[in-house]
């Protein structure tokens, strides 16, 4: 059997039925195998970065391993951002890259890059296959490593000559042998007992949950724990959807753009129970000020996360689902008390807000809030990165896990469109909506053609404020309104320095690009409005249309995201805006 056939068979044995990718000289034999099989659905993206993000989006919604195949050299390096993105958000993907022929390795051959070297620090693990006989074993290991323990990206680099080599007796392993990789699933019972005691002694307990809850499918156990103990709960952006947004005892997202109640609760709690989180700096602010009145319990499957950013008084290494299950069996019921009342008061007194009534221009928050009227519990939301991402985290009504695809750790502009595409390719019947900005969408806008040609039903909502809004917001608040390099309409007619288009009659304000024309040129339906009263109509028309649509809303240019905890400030030093 040929190496390429062995690779295909190995992938089929891992139940792979969907692959994203882009061909090239070093992977022609692999694509030739695809030509002769109907067992794999293949999506040709328009850029390898798109393929990597699509595999990531696919993995997030289907909870399977996302797979992408690219060629050597530039094909491989174009996936780098996608791999780093999957690493920071713990998403299981396997990236298979072609490589120059074995004999040319290390000679700076045409389209040769050291993929193993390049991905060493951004992948969970990586391989260069040197013998064709090893393909089944390494593919098996790659999938096993990607999805077990704390998930992450694994890359496999395969010299093209291996694909053409013949092997007589191919052996497919049935299990993996990795003496160095044995994730600890069950938490130490003694540590769980300690946590049980801490909960019964705590006056102000707080649950702080994150992506680990979603990855381990622990949402039922979480709901049960909250029901039993009435512990107020906050969720990271990666954890959104593990609890319905309107759940009892749920406060919302803490951190830089988190809600006031969640941040106050962290500042004041005396027991912080962290589940599947990594104390990211966008949550903690200065680490020595974070939850400083609190005993910290940290449940995570990755021992290296425990104590990395915040010291854990009660460390529990284990899978969130398994540990929460055990905790539920042992923990005593807890009634609501003054602490609950206090957190609810914070919540009621500090709702998220925007003032569309007093604005003639469309406010981005208003559009997101309106979308809530057109969705079901099962709708999949993808986002790009920036202000719209924060607003969609805040204002979208998250209902279910694995339904909010966002680049949390790496903050990758350009993630949204290919991720939404991968999700929709995995679940063609589900409604998939992308929130993006005029900056982010242009970073992978080439995938519009992929949507149209394959009739991938993604509804794109661009909140166009003509700025790289999040950076402009920092310039507005902390850099004396020096809008340096953040206006996407800046052109040769502009003054050297600019404090923004408001009150500037000379602002050339060129509308480029015309997103509706871009959409239509790519075979995607395009809609646009700048009128508040048309928002609902456009959403209805766009979301009910059968096929991919791009809806552009020209929104208030200098709207800021609030609340905001400025970088370097404590969690209770919050800017609330007007």
């Amino acid at each position, binding site marked *: 059997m040929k190496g390429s056939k062995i690779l295909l068979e190995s992938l089929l044995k891992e139940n792979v039925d969907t692959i994203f990718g882009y061909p090239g000289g070093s992977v022609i034999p692999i694509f030739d195998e695809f030509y002769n099989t109907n067992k794999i659905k293949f999506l040709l993206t328009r850029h390898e970065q798109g393929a990597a993000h699509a595999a990531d989006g696919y993995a997030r919604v289907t909870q399977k391993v996302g797979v992408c195949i690219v060629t050597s050299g530039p094909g491989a390096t174009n996936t780098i951002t996608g791999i780093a993105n999957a690493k920071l958000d713990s998403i299981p993907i396997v990236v298979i890259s072609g490589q120059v022929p074995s004999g040319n390795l290390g000679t700076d051959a045409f389209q040769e890059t050291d993929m193993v070297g390049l991905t*060493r620090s951004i992948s969970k693990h990586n391989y*260069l296959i040197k013998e064709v006989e090893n393909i089944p074993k390494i593919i098996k290991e790659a999938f096993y490593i990607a999805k077990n323990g704390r998930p992450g990206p694994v890359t496999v680099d395969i010299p093209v000559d291996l694909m053409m080599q013949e092997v007589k007796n191919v052996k497919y392993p049935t299990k993996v042998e990795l003496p*160095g990789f044995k994730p600890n699933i069950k938490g130490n019972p003694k540590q769980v007992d300690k946590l049980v005691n801490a909960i019964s002694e705590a006056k102000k307990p707080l649950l702080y949950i994150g992506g680990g809850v979603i990855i381990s499918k622990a949402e039922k156990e979480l709901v049960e724990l909250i029901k039993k103990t009435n512990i107020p709960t906050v969720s990271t952006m990666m954890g959104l959807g593990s609890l319905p947004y309107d759940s009892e005892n749920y406060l919302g997202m803490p951190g830089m753009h988190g809600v006031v109640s969640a941040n106050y609760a962290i500042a004041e709690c005396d027991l912080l129970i962290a589940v599947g989180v990594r104390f990211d700096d966008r949550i903690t602010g200065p680490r020595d000020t974070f939850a400083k009145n609190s005993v910290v319990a940290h449940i995570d499957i990755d021992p*290296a996360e425990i104590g990395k950013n915040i010291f854990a008084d009660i460390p529990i290494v284990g899978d969130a689902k398994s540990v929460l299950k055990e905790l539920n069996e042992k923990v005593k019921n807890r009634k609501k008390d003054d602490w609950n009342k206090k957190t609810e008061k914070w919540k009621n007194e500090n709702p998220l807000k925007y003032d569309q009534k007093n604005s003639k221009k469309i406010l981005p928050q208003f559009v997101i809030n309106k979308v809530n009227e057109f969705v079901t519990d099962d709708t999949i939301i993808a986002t790009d990165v920036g202000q719209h991402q924060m607003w969609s985290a805040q204002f979208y009504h998250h209902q279910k896990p694995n339904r909010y695809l966002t680049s949390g750790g790496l903050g990758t502009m350009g993630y949204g469109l290919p991720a939404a595409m991968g999700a929709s390719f995995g679940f063609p019947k589900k409604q998939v909506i992308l929130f993006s900005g005029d900056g982010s969408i242009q970073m992978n806008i080439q995938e519009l053609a992929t949507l149209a040609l394959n009739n991938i039903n993604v509804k794109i909502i661009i909140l166009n404020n003509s700025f790289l809004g999040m950076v402009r917001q920092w310039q507005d608040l902390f850099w004396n309104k020096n809008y340096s390099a953040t206006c996407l309409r800046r052109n040769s007619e502009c003054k050297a320095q600019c404090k923004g288009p408001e009150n500037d009659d000379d602002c050339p304000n060129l509308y480029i690009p015309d997103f509706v024309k871009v959409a239509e040129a790519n075979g995607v339906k395009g809609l646009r409005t700048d009128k508040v009263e048309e928002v609902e109509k456009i959403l209805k028309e766009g979301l009910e249309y059968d096929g991919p649509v791009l809806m552009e809303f020209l929104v208030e240019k200098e709207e800021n995201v609030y609340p905001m905890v400025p970088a370097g400030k404590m969690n209770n030093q919050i800017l609330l805006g007007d």
Partner: protein
Amino acid sequence: MKEKHTIILTVMNRVGILARISGLLAQRGFNIESVIGALTEDPDVYKITLVLYESERAIEQVTKQLNKLIDTIKVIDISHKNNYIIREYIIIKVKVNQNTRSDVIELIDVFKAKPLDISQTHIITELSGNVRKVDRFIDLMKPYGVSNYVRSGEFAMTEFNNENK
């Protein structure tokens, strides 16, 4: 407070394992004081002894990160354990003349070091022992003029009756 930590890594004998380890340390801002590695009695297993000067907290982090590498089987920080035999090996080239040669040879004798090559102007000698012994030997050779030396870095093994192989 930064202090010396000797870490024994048991890893799978895989291509690029040293690059993974040194890359990880560099990525997280650690300087390697010394590193030595070779195959063990099991050809699939490679053993590395690593010396780092870092704080207790940093070492805890780095051992966790090293453990996280898929090819890592075991990581032990032996700094506060006394049931290890730790050795280092050195080859050193010392300047001599007619007046000093016998003094140097006497010291070599006392230290149970072994001369490897003797010329009119130099003596090359090898020595193994614990780190303090090696340091002291270098110190004593300095007044005569040390041309250069190579040290192996530390390597270690558990004593008998210990659960850690």
